[in-house]
């Protein structure tokens, strides 16, 4: 046999094999079937909303999408989120077109609506799945999820019509639902709502400060001449009644608690310098004003020192010591309740210097706390302000939370936190504002659990494990203008629709750790970290642009998901000097920069890498390697690196040469 015939036969065979590619129908999604929802990458409604609905037994319609260019199944809580995930250009660019979309099928589950519009199913039935294009969606009914109104999917048209008829809704198909959703503008706003939240915080502080104008009803001390002198000095217009009562502990009242019990509501109790045995309960709107650190409330090392169970209580100019060392309350019995409930029962009931419960609008100001457990715990207390307060916890992790808002929206400002576990641990504390604080030597500076719409602004954090740590899957948080240094991780995020802007993270092991979806990272200064920016998100749909990322050992550590492209509207980030030039002088280098690529990363230091970076081969790769990001190995590309830093003055303070 001739060699050429043999080789030709082999080639022909190979061509036949290649030709088989023509008969295979690629990616029609027909063969795909839904997976268990807990095995999807979930997004959509926040963890809080989902958790609340689950606890209450309400149905949140869910969907799952199989994208053509992403191997993981993405699960969506809520039909709105599902439609966004299928239609949003950002998702399509990152993950390709949807091969298959499945939604819950409520047909046959006999759904009912509560008075509020929540959807319940009898016998806690679990709805199955149907293809979105085969489904019918009931819209315009009062049906809602904790996040708002929702469409309800049915696999059967008759069932959908019946439900629509019963609840004054109408029925649309998948296309119809998508069109309805498309009508709403989904403008991407890269500006965090800082001003608005600052205004709320200002108002809240102002309102809480109203407690400082209360007339003085009582002056408390341990030394009679001092007490009487002080009481006499209270001018009549400041006094409640004719003159404040002079109360000498041990003579006029057995304990501080007994004295305070006598004070009328909406008055001020002045505590003179001295040490008070205090396991105090305040059940009326009172102001307890000390003289500063000389007024010491000593809990004797047992339990909580001050327990507040009334709105509008103020504790000012005090020092609190002798806090019990029980970090957590005791579960009366393990009733198998949800994790967050256990947190509530345990974290919320540990020993504290001050525990606020149902104490809206209360104020803790200029209080110095030494605690082996918690500092200020706020339960179900909105509008609470903790300011100008200093909490010193124990070294190591044996202490607990310096400020612990739970189910409470509060303001924490101008305070110092040193030691203990977390400076502020926000648990279901939507809208909390944490600003202008100084934090050092503890675990997390700000620890966000199930808490959305917070503002964490202008805080200084040093020598901690993680400066700002957003966990669970909240939404709308704004982390702005903070300065985190010398820590393991500067800022670590999660959730959606959040903002991380204008922060400085320096000299950390990891500067910025991005775990969010559809969030904005802009104007941050990331310098001298081991890893500048770490991506951990599985749904890389964030806008990362106009950040200065320089002087880090590694600029970027790619995530586990896919290729990410970091630029918005032709503006990427500043990475120092990168290969390429800016010919048209628009401040953008006309060559993509790959901070995760060894050649690009070393281009500045190694002449070999620099020469390679300019090679036609490298340029050629540039062309297509940003396509089909969902199928790419995890890496990061900046298609429009900046020629000049966004915040050069910040870099100068770090001695990073700006050339």
């Amino acid at each position, binding site marked *: 046999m*001739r*060699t*050429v*015939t043999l*080789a*030709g036969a*082999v*080639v022909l065979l*190979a*061509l036949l*094999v*290649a*030709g*088989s*590619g*023509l008969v*295979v129908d*690629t*990616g029609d999604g027909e063969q*795909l079937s839904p*997976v*268990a929802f807990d*095995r*999807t*990458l979930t997004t959509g409604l926040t963890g809080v909303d989902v958790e609340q609905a689950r606890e209450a037994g309400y149905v949140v319609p869910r969907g799952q999408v*199989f*994208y*053509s*260019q*992403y*191997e*993981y*199944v993405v699960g969506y809580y809520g039909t709105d989120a599902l439609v966004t995930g299928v239609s949003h250009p950002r998702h*399509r660019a990152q993950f*390709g*077109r949807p*091969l298959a979309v499945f939604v819950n099928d409520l047909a046959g589950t006999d759904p009912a609506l509560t008075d509020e519009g929540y959807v319940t199913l009898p016998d806690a039935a679990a709805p199955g799945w149907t293809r979105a294009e085969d489904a019918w969606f009931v819209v315009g009914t009062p049906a809602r999820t904790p996040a708002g109104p929702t469409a309800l999917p049915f696999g059967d048209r008759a069932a959908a019509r019946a439900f629509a008829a019963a609840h004054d809704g109408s029925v649309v198909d998948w296309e119809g639902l998508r069109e309805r959703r498309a009508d709403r503008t989904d403008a991407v706003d890269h500006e965090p709502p800082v001003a608005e939240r600052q205004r709320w915080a200002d108002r809240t502080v102002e309102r809480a400060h109203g407690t400082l104008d209360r007339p003085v009803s009582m002056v408390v001390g341990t030394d009679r001449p001092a007490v009487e002198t002080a009481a006499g000095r209270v001018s009549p217009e400041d006094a409640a009644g004719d003159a404040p009562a002079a109360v000498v502990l041990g003579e006029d009242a057995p304990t501080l608690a007994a004295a305070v019990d006598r004070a009328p509501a909406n008055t001020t109790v002045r505590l003179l310098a001295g040490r008070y045995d205090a396991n105090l309960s305040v059940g009326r709107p009172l102001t307890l004003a000390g003289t500063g650190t000389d007024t010491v409330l000593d809990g004797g090392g047992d339990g909580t020192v001050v327990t507040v169970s009334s709105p509008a209580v103020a504790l000012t100019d005090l020092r609190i010591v002798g806090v019990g060392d029980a970090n957590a309350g005791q579960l009366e019995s393990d009733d198998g309740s949800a994790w967050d409930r256990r947190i509530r029962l345990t974290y919320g009931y540990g020993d504290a210097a001050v525990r606020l419960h149902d104490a809206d609008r209360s104020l803790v100001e200029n209080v110095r706390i030494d605690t082996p457990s918690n500092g200020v715990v706020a339960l179900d207390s909105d509008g609470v302000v903790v300011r100008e307060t200093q909490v010193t916890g124990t070294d190591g992790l044996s202490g607990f939370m310096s400020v612990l808002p739970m189910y409470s929206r509060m303001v924490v400002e101008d305070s110092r936190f040193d030691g203990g576990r977390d400076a502020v641990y926000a648990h279901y504390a939507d809208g909390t504002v944490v600003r202008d604080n100084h934090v050092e030597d503890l675990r997390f500076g700000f620890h966000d659990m199930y808490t959305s719409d917070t503002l964490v602004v202008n805080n200084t954090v040093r020598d901690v494990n993680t400066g700002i740590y957003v966990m669970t899957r909240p939404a709308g948080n704004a982390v702005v203008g903070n300065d985190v240094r010398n820590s393991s991780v500067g800022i670590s995020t999660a959730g959606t629709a959040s903002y991380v802007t204008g922060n400085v993270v320096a000299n950390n092991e990891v500067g910025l750790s991005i775990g969010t979806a559809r969030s904005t990272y802009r104007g941050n200064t990331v310098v001298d970290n081991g890893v500048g920016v770490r991506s951990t998100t*599985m749904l890389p749909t964030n806008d990362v642009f106009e950040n200065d990322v320089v002087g880090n050992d590694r600029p970027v550590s790619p995530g*586990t998901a896919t290729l990410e492209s970091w630029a918005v509207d032709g503006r990427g980030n500043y990475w120092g000097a990168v290969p390429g030039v800016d010919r048209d002088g628009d401040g953008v280098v006309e060559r993509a920069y790959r901070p995760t690529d060894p050649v690009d990363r070393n281009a500045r230091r190694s002449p070999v890498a620099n020469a390679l970076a300019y090679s036609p*081969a490298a340029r*050629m*790769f540039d*062309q*297509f*390697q940003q*396509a*089909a990001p*969902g*199928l*790419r*190995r*995890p890496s990061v590309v900046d298609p429009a690196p900046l020629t000049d830093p966004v915040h050069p003055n910040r870099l100068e303070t770090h001695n990073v040469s700006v050339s």
Partner: protein
Amino acid sequence: MSELRYVADVAEREFRTVLRTPTLLAVGLGYVVLVGGIGWLGGTGAYLALVLDLLTPVELLVPVLSFAVGYRALLGDRESGELETIRTYPIAGHWYVVGVYLGRAVVVLGLVLLSFVLAGSVVPTSDTAQLSVVASHPTADSPALYLRYALATALFALVALAIATLVSAAARSTRGGLALATGGVVALVVGLDSALLGSVSGEHVPTAVLALSPNSAYRSLVLELSVAPTGVAVPEGPTALLGTAALLAWLAASLALATRLAWR
């Protein structure tokens, strides 16, 4: 059919000639290493991504390979005088050219496919970390996309070789052959497309202009067959059919002209 027999023998001679020419072997090896290397350098775990990575380099390299292998096929024998000796045999010129073409085509296709096997092996062997707790599914990415790409590229290689054979038939000297071959590669890779780019100034350009450049026809074929099915946006149009037809036309026309010129 006696023609078929000697066509095979002529092909065999061409095949062995290439295999026994160290320079051509080096070029072939270089091609395989380069394309395979590009695949491994990209290190992607997806066939679509691999196709996109390879598209441009392969489009540049295939004409180079084809011309390297093909441009001396007829010219060499003409220059040495052996072609004259062959012409005293009772064979038909067009069948002889077909044999020459086939023999070299086996080499070119072999190299092209080998390089694709090498580059393609990166996908199943790349150990992208899998999240076991999260359900994964077969994306629109599939080996079929890559196979289609290989098929389209094979057709493109055949066209490039046919044009190289035409150059070989037309050239009358080594220098002329080199100039023609270089010109051929440049025309394929840059010239024709530049001309097309110039023509695409208005909004409505007939799709058929793609047929004027084999490279563009090939590229549109790949985009339609291998890239579009995954949801990467590609404008719709009858480009697959048109691309295939255009490439086949280039192939047939080049070979036909080559046979006429070779036997003069």
